[in-house]
């Protein structure tokens, strides 16, 4: 019989192989599921893993999805390492988008724009996300309210707030009553880095965030304190590391980055405020962070995989006649697969009679 035997020491090799194994396992389970519903499994896998990156245009579209996923996942990696479970990145993204969008709609006069004002709008997004996450931090810090539940409840509040604004204060006056804002003028849109595609400068910001996050965690004292607090709270307390400052830093950083993602989405591919600006990037980024081993550079890999799932879901509608909701199933399976594979870090499989 196959059984688990505890390793004397956690395996470093498995720690890095487990995400790869999880992706392979997800592909395997996915193809079985496709077979069950009567689709050709090989063709289906091609739609998810090869079609999206067949040409430069495909790569650029993947990049458009990587940008928000990566930038949020970097923040969440830092947050989860501090053992602070910010599950509400989706809400922080939405508030970031609202802040940036409101600023643009207020200042935009069809002639202005440019690098300085774009940066200002992005900063507004960061501030918006930070402010939203600060509510969670404050309630946790002052009143010990569980950050998982509070941040999650605030997602619903943020989405309703966005819906309220695009139905009212920020609605396009010439939009025939459609619940959306007017389009931002060109001067306020993020510059495209690859001519002829939609790939905007957000991808560069995301990569910069990843490197900065890595430097913060590995090269700064603050990042060190934060991680000690996450792994061994008692040791951190003994050393005099403040758990409060870790809480605030991790929530503000992850909230700010989620807000940045929201701002970049509305100033990039969307170009206006609409009632639904994110296909669940904030939640998908949780999976991205875990699959990337909560490592700011590891999440580059996992956000790429997650972006493939998003594009694959869109493609499967036209190529396979499968609804794009299939993406959501893949996301869940991926996290399950990772959690199951992670068991092998601390255990090994043994045949025994």
């Amino acid at each position: 019989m196959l059984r688990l035997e505890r390793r004397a020491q956690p395996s470093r090799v498995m720690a890095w192989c487990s995400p790869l194994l999880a992706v392979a396992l997800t592909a395997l389970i996915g193809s079985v599921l496709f077979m069950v519903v009567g689709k050709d499994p090989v063709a289906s896998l091609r739609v998810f893993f090869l079609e999206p990156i067949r040409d430069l245009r495909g790569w650029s579209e993947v990049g458009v999805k990587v940008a928000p996923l990566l930038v949020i996942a970097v923040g969440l990696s830092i947050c989860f390492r501090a053992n602070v479970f910010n599950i509400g990145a989706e809400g922080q993204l939405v508030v970031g988008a609202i802040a940036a969008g409101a600023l643009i709609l207020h200042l935009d006069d069809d002639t202005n724009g440019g690098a300085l004002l774009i940066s200002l709008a992005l900063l507004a997004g960061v501030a918006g996300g930070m402010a939203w996450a600060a509510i969670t931090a404050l309630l946790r810090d002052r009143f010990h309210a569980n950050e998982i539940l509070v941040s999650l409840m605030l997602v619903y509040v943020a989405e309703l707030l966005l819906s309220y604004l695009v139905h009212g204060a920020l609605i396009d006056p010439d939009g025939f009553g459609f619940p959306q804002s007017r389009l931002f003028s060109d001067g306020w849109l993020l510059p495209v880095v690859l001519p002829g595609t939609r790939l905007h400068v957000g991808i560069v910001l995301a990569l910069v965030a990843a490197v900065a996050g890595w430097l913060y965690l590995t090269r700064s004292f603050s990042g060190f304190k934060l991680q000690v607090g996450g792994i061994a709270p008692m040791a951190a307390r003994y050393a005099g590391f403040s758990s409060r400052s870790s809480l605030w830093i991790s929530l503000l950083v992850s909230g700010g980055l989620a807000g940045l993602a929201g701002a970049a989405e509305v100033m990039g591919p969307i170009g206006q405020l609409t009632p639904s600006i994110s296909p669940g990037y904030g939640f998908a980024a949780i999976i991205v962070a875990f699959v990337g081993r909560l490592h700011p550079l590891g999440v580059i890999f996992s956000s790429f995989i997650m972006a493939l799932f998003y594009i694959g879901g869109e493609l499967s509608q036209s190529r396979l006649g499968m609804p794009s909701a299939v993406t959501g199933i893949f996301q869940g399976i991926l996290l399950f697969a990772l959690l199951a594979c992670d068991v092998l870090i601390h255990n090994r499989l043994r045949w025994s009679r």
Partner: protein
Amino acid sequence: MDALAPLIASAMVAGTPLMLAALGLLVNERSGVINLGSEGMMLMGAITAFATTLASGSFTLGFLAGAVVAMLMSGFFAWLTIWLGANQVATGLALSLFGVGASAYLGLPYAGESLQPIQFAVPLLHDIPVLGPALFRHHPLVYGAIALCFVIAWFLMRTRAGLIVRAVGESPTSAHSLGYDVRRIRLACVLFGGACAGLAGAFMSLVYTPLWVEGMVAGRGWIALALTTFATWRPLRVMAGAYLFGGITILTYHMQALGVPIASQLLSMLPYIATVVVLVLISRNAAWIRLNMPASLGKNFNPNA
């Protein structure tokens, strides 16, 4: 007074799924396991129940299917966390994310379908003026949830088995050294929590609405999680909390219907904001929470270590 009757009636109906899910989670958490997957399990319970009832015409079968599917999901959660030692928070989240995605996928053919609402009445009592329409014309599960509340209170506080469950939640090591199989006891509690979440989801799609809309649980699974904290892990307080939240939900609908000049989106925020407020009020006193919270909540136990 006559206007109050439908208000109370609908608050009870709105509170029932919260109560069912929260009661399941309460037993679950009393054994020391926190399952953040309730939102996903409720959604899967809702769509399975809806599809089953639509196909078979039987509500009983629908409820059963909803409970079984959610129970299977919780069984998978139990295997990952209790036997393989996976992190409870991450695994529960995975369950919720999976449930949201899978129910959206499975529910596509059922969008826009609806079931014939069913009428119930408690014999004799339903004719009492005011009280009759307010309290005695509900689906049997509304009363079932109330009964379940008392049964769980009795089970946890007055039976030997309940004492063992609490012991496992407070100190699995002690329970283990007394010879109790901690993992199996936790499995049973997690399965019970799953079944309750499934019933709660089924109640939403079969009785409360009764139709299927993607994401129709709308955070109730998470609110149910908050309710267990709000109730400081006591069943009767769960009932109070669930009806309170049911009341808030219904109040927002009624305010909209009455034409209160507040945007519907702002009114819809109320249940979520109320959850946050309630969490803050109850968690304010850290010592009190620590006193009531199962001591090993969220911590895995490995009998071989």
